[in-house]
């Protein structure tokens, strides 16, 4: 394990997470490195099954049987998370690393009021609260009201007594963000925060996350399959495919000049008003089966540029300042990482 980089909040190296099923072992995450700096917003892009959600579920220690983290290190804020006991991990989860899920309707408990759902985070993690008694209750309510105000929910005190189904979709998403942020985490993992929302609400929710990020100075991992969202909000982007990172670098550079054919394909498949009338170009074929993957470029079967030399194991190569790509077609003169 190398020394932690200065300014680095989360550093994942060589992460392997597999699910042992009857059909075989699914290598959902296969040697993934992630680096998130303090205050930074990083976008993680990839289609369903690329391993982006599993990577960050692994970071949070939320992999359940039959899944297992098989290898790799996860360093967060100077601590080795994999070495922590479940109890120690619980203290970090929800306090220092928080998560929001794709659909607030399913992520919020239908049988508990939103007030209870926000209060329990504070109860579990906030050490500044008065120890017990009515003062504690009051302090919790005050903090909860403050959080709802922060995410822009009107008349917060009354809304605390309501149940999730009494909120609109956009308000629910805000509610979930309020819950996730109530302990002022250092890192927010936002898993598909906009997928379940209307376009207008999407913009509001992303603005909200950006705004709170600036105010609280936290880092954000934005997991999405929407490159437009990444272009607008993320400092850096990481593209995942079939359990591997295939390209990463500063957002503008990656989107302006993609070095991996998969990233290119993703960009070409976005409908754009400027190219009205032209055909959009979906990536042909399907994500490979993650069981029994051969030791070769995983995109090779769908890649327009593939050749015989792609049937070998491909490593990440430097691809410009602060950039790396898992492709041998456009090498930037650097050496491959092992």
């Amino acid at each position, binding site marked *: 394990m190398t020394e932690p980089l200065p300014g680095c909040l989360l550093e994942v190296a060589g992460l392997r997470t597999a699910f042992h099923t009857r059909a075989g072992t699914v290598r959902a995450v296969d040697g993934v490195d992630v680096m998130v700096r303090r205050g930074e917003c990083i976008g993680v892009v990839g289609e369903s099954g690329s391993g982006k959600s599993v990577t960050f579920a692994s970071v949070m220690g*939320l992999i359940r049987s039959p899944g297992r983290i098989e290898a790799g290190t996860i360093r967060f804020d100077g601590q080795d998370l994999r070495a922590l006991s479940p109890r120690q991990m*619980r203290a970090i989860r929800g306090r220092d690393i928080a998560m929001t899920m794709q659909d607030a309707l399913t992520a919020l408990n239908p049988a508990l009021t939103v007030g209870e759902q926000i209060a329990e985070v504070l109860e579990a993690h906030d050490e500044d609260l008065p120890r017990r008694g009515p003062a504690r209750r009051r302090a919790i309510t005050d903090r909860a009201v403050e959080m709802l105000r922060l995410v822009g929910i009107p008349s917060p005190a009354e809304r605390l007594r309501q149940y999730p189904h009494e909120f609109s979709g956009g308000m629910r998403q805000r509610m979930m963000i309020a819950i996730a942020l109530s302990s002022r985490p250092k890192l927010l993992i936002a898993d598909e925060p906009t997928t379940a929302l209307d376009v207008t609400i999407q913009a509001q929710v992303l603005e909200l996350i950006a705004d709170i990020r600036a105010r609280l100075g936290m880092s954000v991992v934005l997991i999405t399959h929407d490159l437009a969202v990444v272009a607008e909000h993320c400092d850096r982007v990481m593209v995942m495919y079939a359990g591997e990172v295939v390209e990463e670098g500063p957002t503008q550079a990656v989107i302006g000049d993609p070095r991996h054919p998969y990233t290119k394909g993703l960009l070409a498949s976005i409908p754009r008003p400027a190219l009205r009338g032209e055909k959009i170009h979906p990536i042909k074929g399907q994500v490979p089966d993650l069981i029994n993957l051969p030791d070769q470029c995983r995109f090779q079967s769908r890649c327009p540029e593939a050749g015989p030399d792609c049937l070998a194991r491909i490593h990440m190569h430097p691809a410009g300042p602060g950039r790396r790509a898992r492709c041998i077609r456009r090498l930037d003169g650097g050496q491959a990482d092992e």
Partner: protein
Amino acid sequence: MSLTKLVERLVQLVPVLLGVSVIVFLMMAMTPGDPVQIMIGDQNVTAAQEAQLRHDLGLDRPAYERLALFIGHAATGHFGESFYYKRPVAQVIAERLPATIELSVVALLIALMTSIPLGVLAAVKKNSVLDRLATVGSLLGVSLPGFWFGILLLMLFAVQLHILPVSGRMGFATSIRPITGFLLIDTLLRGDPAAFVDALKHILLPAITLGLPMTAVLMRVTRTSMLEVLRQDYITFAEAKGLSRTRVLVRHALKNALIPTVSVAAIETGSLLGGNMIVETVFGWPGLGRLVVDSIFVRDYPLVQTAVLLYAVTYVLLNFVADILYTFLNPRVKL
């Protein structure tokens, strides 16, 4: 829960009770056997005496007239006099009711206290030895006939091991002046712990026998709904908040998983009524179930009809309670 809804429910009771009255009346009327002949037995009576008895009981009238009379009287709260006990039916039933309620409540408590934790454990430790044992056990629990299981328990604990009594509510040596009619409560109110233990020992086997099928059903329902709930996003989200395992399981999972369990429990409580007749007979429990069985044998029409009406009312009310509990647990549903 509005008053109109409550009134609506009570109004719904009327056709149910009417229907039940007619059906019970017809079934009793069609059952072979003549109450008058049963009463006379081997005694030497003249034809005139027999006719007089038949007239006194109102049995010389045509069936439709008797049915109309019964419904009419029942509507005004008069259930007539028991053929056998020669006392008002309501009074005879009221005397037996506490024993049955006590037995049912204890059976219900045993069922709830074992089935819910077992169901949760089986779901959390899915496919473990415990899960398999619980699943097989619940299958047995549903399929074993109550009278047979009760007799097995009696043979083991009462006959072989001599640790629990064979029948009745209390030993002959103990007696307690009733306050509520519920022995477990009365013994405590009278400050007689020895009698309490005695009553507890007596109620244990019948309550277990009575509660067994319910335990089995509730365990399966809890396990299934718990498994369903544990897959939900809100459980992952609760874990992502860093809550303790217990809190996630109890507050987040169980509260949702109990919604079907509670509804089924309330309805299954109705099935305890039927079970009571068998269990009370096996364990010599002086409750309503045994009274009804005995009354059927002597063709005590007024008593059987009234008791069955009472069962019907209880059943409908339990369903109502199930609905109320359902809305209480599930904020998305309003009555």
